[in-house]
């Protein structure tokens, strides 16, 4: 949960009076709030934590970190379905028709 993942801004829009972006985390795409980094632009990278961009990051560092996270399986941990490992640890089967659907698009 404390993991913050670098992502690249794909597009920006205003929603409910809030600056929001679509951000690509090495293939996983999610909505991110830009209120704490309001001048972030399309194409730039930022460190994102629980759906909020918190600090700018240069492209090279961002790419290196993303590669490492992918290698270590941390992206799956951050964006994957958390019910499955919980069920596995509990020795039961995951709930059917779960509502947690990661927004993934390649």
């Amino acid at each position: 949960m404390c993991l913050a993942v670098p992502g690249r801004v794909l597009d920006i829009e205003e929603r409910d009076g809030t600056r929001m972006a679509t951000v690509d985390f090495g293939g996983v795409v999610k909505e991110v709030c830009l209120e704490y980094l309001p001048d972030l632009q399309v194409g730039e990278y930022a460190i994102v934590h629980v759906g909020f961009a918190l600090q700018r990051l240069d492209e090279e560092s961002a790419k290196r970190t993303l590669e490492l996270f992918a290698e270590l399986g941390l992206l799956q941990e951050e964006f994957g379905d958390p019910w499955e490992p919980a069920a596995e640890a509990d020795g039961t089967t995951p709930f059917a028709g779960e509502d947690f659907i990661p927004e993934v698009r390649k």
Partner: protein
Amino acid sequence: MKYIDEFQDPELARRLLDDIHATVTRPWALMEVCGGQTHSIIRHGIDQLLPEEVELIHGPGCPVCVTPLEVIDKALEIASRPEVIFCSFGDMLRVPGTGRDLFQVRGEGGDVRVVYSPLDALRIAQQNPDRDVVFFGIGFETTAPPNAMTVHQARRLGIPNFSMLVSHVRVPPAIEAIMASPSCRVQGFLAAGHVCSVMGVGEYPDLAERFRVPIVVTGFEPLDILEGVRRTVRQLERGEHTVDNAYARAVRPEGNPAAKAMLEDVFEITDRAWRGIGVIPDSGWRLSAKYRDYDAERRFSVDGIQTREPAECRSGEVLQGLLKPHECEAFGTLCTPRTPLGATMVSSEGACAAYYLYRRLDLTTPAGREVSPVV
């Protein structure tokens, strides 16, 4: 150096390690504060690559682990109510309260949902105006600003059926409590990088000066940790105790001013109990008077719930660096990720979980019990 080929840049790792080996002349104990750093250290065997004089002590930097049992029990109580949709980050699902966890509440019919962002919980509240949506707001300074913004948005947009169970914690008072303890062995800190991305480094010079302890802001990638250790050991060998930023690509000295301003508006500093440790003065945040209507504890009248923590779980000592996970009698037997006594064994950032998951396959506890990893 058996793990070094797995490093992202093995040559740079080797140079950093050589420098650390060449610098060290006597024993030093450093504490890494962040649970992400702990996992990185164990996963990459960094503790085994360092000179034997350099000991890494795992700190209290896992927000899930330090959330008090009674807060978990409050969450379970709220999540069990039929009118409630209870939203949480995924890593709280298996954290044990008294007798059960959120996963089991869900199995018993509670509407427990996992969200990626607190704003997802707010959206669920907008989509379900006839239900009460409660978000479990835990975490350090990295997570508190997103949660603060969500409460702010709920108020701004006039969403009455949203509230938050808030149990946020602050790192600097924890460092102070650790240093002030008579049993403290820590001589240098690797400060948590992403906490500083938000807060900057302004809270640390006073601590470094008062306790004469170097504090080096460190990232959590393996090379970041080696660099953090290198800079901390250099200071210690020279008798210095300054605040140094070894994670400048993600940490500006002033942090994120917009996030800090929102924290100040939505939250106020309060004493907070840390699981297994006890109350640390000024170490937490609660909703400020302006946002008190969004306090789930009040809304669901669970503020009276009090719970005593089980004595057999020694996670408090692990969180303070007084005990290594595998030195606990229950480690790997009574306490496993399937049957956790405490959150340190089940959280994705917990020190006990790190030892259980990544620690050497031949790990043997002091009592001589073989421990098999779950992977």
